[in-house]
């Protein structure tokens, strides 16, 4: 029986694990934190229809019940490999071997403190979209730091994305639709609030997203201002004064908000000890893992038997991550079946 080790127990890792097990492979999943599910743990409701994230998370976790090895709280301290397979050292005291490895270590979220002028960590009523989502999940009423019901809430797009000063030139893709979704959610919780979204572009790329935008405007009265925040300031009562240029009028504008939500972007994992650098894999210009052959095989790396999927190759939605997980499972399954005669150049042949 051949074995696969999946590094990263998030959405991609769990779905690929389930599929590979069903295909008859022996799977081990290694997860750095103390729980499975990755970023899905931080979502309350998924766009565009606000599908509750909980059931999907449970399903992914439960799928991995039979015949699978799960290791949590695992810190990978070394990886060695040859043509036959891989040896992975965990926590400096345990060794796992595998014929093939799948990297699904995902991405990092931009640290909003780096945008000093927005005052995250300094002003009391500035939060990130991740924190807002967790507030929805907690079910507790949304209040300002002073304990009041906010009457005006602003969402700032592109925090840490499309920004040379932040070190990320790329677009994080999912934040625009997330902002619209969260705006609708907060409006339903606080119907009296005025909601403003400050955007450079509105990237409503997916199915049903554009309709969500129109619904936000018409059904919920949410206002969209094409502007980028230059600086925010905290008034003595804790409210925020922001400074923008209303680009469609070409005039500067200032207004007060009770609360400001920063749409923090998705960025590649760069901390020391991350696996991409540890394995000597190449990063693309945007810092995410380089995909040698995005059309033929987006999951292959230059190391034979080492595959990647999910957020490690760039920002994606949960649907897209699941699709990648299923595809890479089939590819790994195929590799393991034809390992001995593998040349690295054959066209992909599906055999299920």
């Amino acid at each position, binding site marked *: 029986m051949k074995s696969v080790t999946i590094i990263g127990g998030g959405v991609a890792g769990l779905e690929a694990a389930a599929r590979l097990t069903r295909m008859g492979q022996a799977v081990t999943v290694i997860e750095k934190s103390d729980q499975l599910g990755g970023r899905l743990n931080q979502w309350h409701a998924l766009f565009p229809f606000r599908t509750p994230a909980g059931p999907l998370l449970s399903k992914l976790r439960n799928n991995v019940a039979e015949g699978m090895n799960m290791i949590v709280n695992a810190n990978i301290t070394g990886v060695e490999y040859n043509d036959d397979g891989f040896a992975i050292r965990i926590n400096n005291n345990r060794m796992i071997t595998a014929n093939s490895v799948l990297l699904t270590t995902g991405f990092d979220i931009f640290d909003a403190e780096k945008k000093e002028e927005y005052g995250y960590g300094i002003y009391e009523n500035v939060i990130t979209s991740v924190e807002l989502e967790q507030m929805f999940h907690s079910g507790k009423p949304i209040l300002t730091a002073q304990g009041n019901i906010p009457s005006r809430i602003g969402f700032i797009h592109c925090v840490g994305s499309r920004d040379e000063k932040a070190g990320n030139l790329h677009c994080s893709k999912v934040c625009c639709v997330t902002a619209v979704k969260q705006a609708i959610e907060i409006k339903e919780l606080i119907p009296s609030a005025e909601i403003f979204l400050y955007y450079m572009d509105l990237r409503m790329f997916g199915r049903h997203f554009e309709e969500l*935008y*129109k619904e936000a*405007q*018409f059904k919920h*009265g949410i*206002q*969209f201002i*094409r502007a980028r925040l230059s600086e925010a300031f905290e008034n003595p009562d804790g409210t925020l004064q922001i400074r923008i240029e*209303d680009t*469609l*009028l070409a*005039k*500067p*504008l*200032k*207004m*007060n908000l009770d609360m400001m939500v920063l749409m923090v972007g998705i960025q590649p994992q760069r901390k020391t000890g991350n696996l991409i650098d540890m394995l000597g894999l190449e990063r693309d210009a945007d810092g995410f893992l380089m995909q040698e052959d995005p059309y033929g095989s987006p999951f292959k790396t230059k190391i034979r038997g080492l595959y990647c999927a999910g957020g490690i190759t760039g920002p994606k939605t949960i649907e897209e991550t699941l699709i990648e997980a299923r595809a890479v499972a089939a590819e790994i399954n195929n590799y393991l079946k034809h390992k001995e005669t593998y040349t690295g150049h054959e066209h992909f042949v599906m055999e299920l």
Partner: protein
Amino acid sequence: MIGFGYKIQADRQIDYDSNNRRILEFVRDGEPSIDWCMSCGTCASACTAAMTADYSLRRLIIQARRGMENEIRESVYRCRFCGKCFNACPRGVNTRNIVYLMQLAATKITNHEI
């Protein structure tokens, strides 16, 4: 007063909180589709009046949302109601009604009716 030879310049920053949005509220009451507008500017690019006058419905709707009454009243009467914008709008906004209501609101403000 001393003649300094220069003057304090007017502040052109839009002060959102001090502006009055009564024109927007009046229009929205009569034509809710004003909220569908996404400022794409197709109306302004089709517009007859814009060819020879400083008029832009895209801009007028944003000005209404910001509460910029003086600017609205300066340009809103230039529309000739030809209807090209109504044909062009991708969101199905009833543009002619919006302009009509804006002009009506502007007149009412002049007559101190609202």
